[in-house]
């Protein structure tokens, strides 16, 4: 894997803190390893949407990497609830199921971007750079109508 220029927070130059949400322990480990090569730090992990909501409140991460298909509560519902409580939350969906209906639903609930598994590090890196450089109130195209004020 080629070296990546470390990602840093715009406001203070500190490493970007991630919350990684996936029901697969293996996927969480794999994504953790990837974000660490980007200079990021893992602030927390969750194996389902419900735990993700709790962990978001506890860790206040800069970015959430969220799977869609999970037990108890799926990723799209978790995004909606996190963004309702934290309108500036930056959530990137990471899922093997990437059909248009799912992507649109996630964006409408407040997700900032979508990455399909298997994740290519260079693709995830570019998306993270893009999402980190967005203004907090900026939503992706097509995301505004589903947002809760």
């Amino acid at each position, binding site marked *: 894997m080629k070296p990546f220029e470390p990602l840093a927070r715009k406001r203070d130059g500190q490493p970007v803190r991630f919350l990684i949400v996936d029901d*697969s322990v293996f996927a969480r480990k794999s994504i953790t*390893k990837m974000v660490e090569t980007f200079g990021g730090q893992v602030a927390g992990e969750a194996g389902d949407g419900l735990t993700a909501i709790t962990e978001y409140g506890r860790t206040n991460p800069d970015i959430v990497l969220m799977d869609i298909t999970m037990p108890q509560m799926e990723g799209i519902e978790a995004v909606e609830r996190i963004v309702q409580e934290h309108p500036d939350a930056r959530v990137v969906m990471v899922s093997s199921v990437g*059909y248009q209906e799912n992507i649109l639903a996630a964006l409408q609930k407040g997700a900032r971007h979508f990455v*399909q598994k*298997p994740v*290519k590090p260079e693709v995830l890196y570019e998306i993270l750079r893009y999402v980190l450089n967005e203004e907090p109130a900026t939503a992706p195209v097509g995301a505004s109508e589903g947002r809760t004020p």
Partner: protein
Amino acid sequence: MKMDLIQPFIGSLDTVLAEMMKAPVTIADVTMEEEGYRRKGLAAVVGFKGQIEGRIILDMEPSAAAKIAEYMAGGEVDPAESIVPETVCELANMVIGNAVTQLNDRGFQFRVFPPALLTEDQCARIGSDSEATILSFDTPVGVVHLNISMRYHSRRSGERQPVAVG
């Protein structure tokens, strides 16, 4: 079973494994199975419901799973480690998720459920009530099997109800 429903799974397994291992994958065998499914090694099942209903089992020898875990984890993995069955589930998730994406974008509407590891007892129960197509693939780490059993319901376009996997 309609071949145009199976084709995305063949393409997806080829794409996902080739992407991870940087090597080609070829179909070694295609068979039909009507009785209880006999697990070849470590197996994970993904169920789906909607216009297309059924389940797919991804199955491989533990040594092959360990090798794939090494590719995915980027380091040496012991076949006895708990990460190996996790790898089979995640691989099933990726292969089936990518195929489902293609089918959904072609207009088939259905819901997918999280992957689950299969025990031998579950295998026997799963296969006993439906015909399945088994695709065996030669990969650089050994043979990987996809056991596909699904039905197409043309009148269920709006149905999106969840069911338990397995």
